């Protein structure tokens, strides 16, 4: 049984302008010691999906299931949820400055976290644990820095402090929502390495949400590609990068400035993502898709298996066999498959 299994999750919000269908029928699962990467552009629903799982979307209309160690997180009471969130599921957000309280010392905030979930812990013990955690994530001189305020930390250190806090109760699952987006590449490398090390040391499962395909390529085992609130394609990392089926995955990969290749014109995906209030009929990607045909406009394709491994699925009406799919690509785009 997977550690977390999300099934057919729907999340919508009522707003003045209409109902925002933020997540539409998303399923994914993650096992112990594995990293699931959820990739998508702004408004693809990647953050809302995981925030809903941890009970952080208030006022939303939710349906579906999120089985964590066999229990459904979506039907838990606030009290039950609080005992899971933070203790068993750790969370890291994009902006470490607004996730840390500016008035309290870093150490105090970590100790508070420990006390909230393990009330009886002696102060000195909790503090010692906080020092160990800061050392673990690579904060130099943690005995001293523990008494610093968040503003005395640099961006990378704050994010590492957030990781320390998220790891303070040895969670079995870590949800990292754009953990390195606000950071410079060298610091990003440091932070990703810390997450990887924690994973190998403690067997923590990680859900990594990002828009950066480079980060996914470095750390994810499995990948879900989201667009307009739905999963377009899912599969093992190498399937997504080298054996992709969905035209959106293809478009994303092709629009990147290729690293280490000749400078040529970029191939962006034309148009813009749709409004989540007025979604296009049929496949949400059809207005931007180079392969679009009649069926795409009227029927929404299901997430069906393709030629890859058992987890490789794609929500697209194009043929689900490799030879036929490549034939279509060659005909429409007129280019050989990347080897």
């Amino acid at each position, binding site marked *: 049984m997977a550690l977390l299994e999300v099934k057919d999750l729907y999340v919508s919000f009522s707003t003045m302008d209409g109902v925002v269908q933020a997540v539409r029928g998303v399923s994914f699962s993650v096992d112990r010691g594995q990293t699931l990467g959820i990739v998508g552009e702004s408004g693809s629903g990647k953050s809302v999906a995981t925030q809903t799982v941890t009970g952080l979307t208030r006022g939303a209309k939710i349906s579906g299931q999120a089985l964590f160690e066999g229990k459904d997180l979506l039907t838990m009471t606030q009290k039950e949820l609080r005992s899971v969130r933070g203790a068993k599921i750790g969370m890291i957000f994009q902006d470490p400055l607004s996730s840390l309280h500016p008035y309290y010392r870093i150490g105090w905030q970590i100790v508070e976290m420990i006390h909230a979930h393990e009330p009886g812990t002696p102060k000195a013990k909790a503090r010692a644990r906080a020092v160990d955690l800061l050392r673990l994530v690579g904060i130099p*001189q943690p005995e001293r820095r523990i008494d610093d305020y968040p*503003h005395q930390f640099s961006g990378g250190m704050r994010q590492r402090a957030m990781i320390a806090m998220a790891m303070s109760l040895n969670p079995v699952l870590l949800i990292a929502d754009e953990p390195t987006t606000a950071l410079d*590449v*060298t610091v990003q*490398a440091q932070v990703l390495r810390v997450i990887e090390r924690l994973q190998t040391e403690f067997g923590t499962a990680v859900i990594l949400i990002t828009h950066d395909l480079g980060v996914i*390529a470095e750390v994810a085992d499995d990948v879900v590609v989201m667009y307009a609130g739905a999963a377009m394609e899912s599969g093992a990392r190498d399937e997504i990068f080298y054996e992709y089926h969905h035209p959106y995955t293809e478009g994303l990969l092709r629009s990147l400035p290729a690293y280490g290749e000749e400078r040529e*014109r*970029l191939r962006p995906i034309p148009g813009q993502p749709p409004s989540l209030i007025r979604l296009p009929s049929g496949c949400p990607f059809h207005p931007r898709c180079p392969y679009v045909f009649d069926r795409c406009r009227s029927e929404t394709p299901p997430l069906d298996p393709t030629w890859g491994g058992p987890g490789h699925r794609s929500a697209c009406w194009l043929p689900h066999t490799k030879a036929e799919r490549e034939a279509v690509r060659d005909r429409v785009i007129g280019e050989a498959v990347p080897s």
Partner: protein
Amino acid sequence: MSDALLSLTDVVKYFPVQTGHLRRSRDMVHAVDGVSFEVRRGETLGLVGETGCGKSTLARCISRLFELTSGQIIFDGRDISRLRPRQLRPLRREMQMIFQDPYGSLNPKRRVGSIIGDPFAIHGTASGAERKRRVQEAMELVGLNPEHYNRFPSEFSGGQRQRIGVARALALRPKLIICDEPVSALDVSIQAQIINLLSDLQDQLDLTYVFIAHDLSVVRHVSDRVALMYLGKVVEIAPAEELYQHPRHPYANALLSAVPIPDPIAAAKRERIVLVGDVPSPVHPPSGCNFHPRCPKAQDRCVVEEPSLLPRFDDDELHATACHFPVADGEDLSEARPAIGVEHRIVEPDTAGAPTGLGVSVAHGSPGSPESPEPVERRRS
């Protein structure tokens, strides 16, 4: 390089740090600390570096949004470094900026037509129907529907707003455009649209760009030459491919090795050089080469003597590096260890088990408050 449109000589910009109740300022943030380079007509010079390296400050110095502390900027044959605000106005016609935030750089209460029309109004070059025609021409040029002349910025998506910013910058047909992180706020699929637009416009209108970004793959894609900055100084400058293929400065090597590659096989093969510590405070930059506290190749000489920006090994004159011990092709930096004598160590070795075990200079946080040498006990009461 006689065909320089822009030429910088030893440009310096310091900001005073105000501390204490009397707001006396004694310390200075060394934001840009002696930068010299040239930008030739029709080329794109990429300016890269991490947060706080001074690249945006430098951009604002070039466009004279900031006064220089010292140094000289020659633009199109004229010394613009000491011009007064009134004298700057004609300059603005020839040099424009595009900003990062397509939300913050457009007035939400004004219609797009009037935003793009501002340059014409300010410089009195066109009014009435003529202005409208010119604005719509600019909108068409950047791929906006000219019929949307009367809409508000909020009716446009992020990518389209960035196009509005481009149209405004282009309105007066400038010679030089300084793009400060023009695509960082955009999604990848939209980012590619704007990059293509900028390169088409360059060909059409014979533009010269200074292109600032922290995304190294974007900079590589758009730039002819790239200058890499660290703590207010250019540490390496070279033709784009040359810099990415043969980085000489240890910092350039580390930075390039940290760029995530969207290709799992290539990413797994790559040797990572993970730098320890953080960028030191620009208030008290380290002595000598300011990268030495983090450099895996640092030696005593680096602590005392600042390296100059020169071609190293048998690099041609376009490829200059500011390093005493540049990295040769094929050299493995991941095994390198600094050899700084005890008398030059700044801080205690890192206790966090940092991989190289070298001293990490941890001066940051509030500007002007460098690390105190002994632990400070400040208990909560």
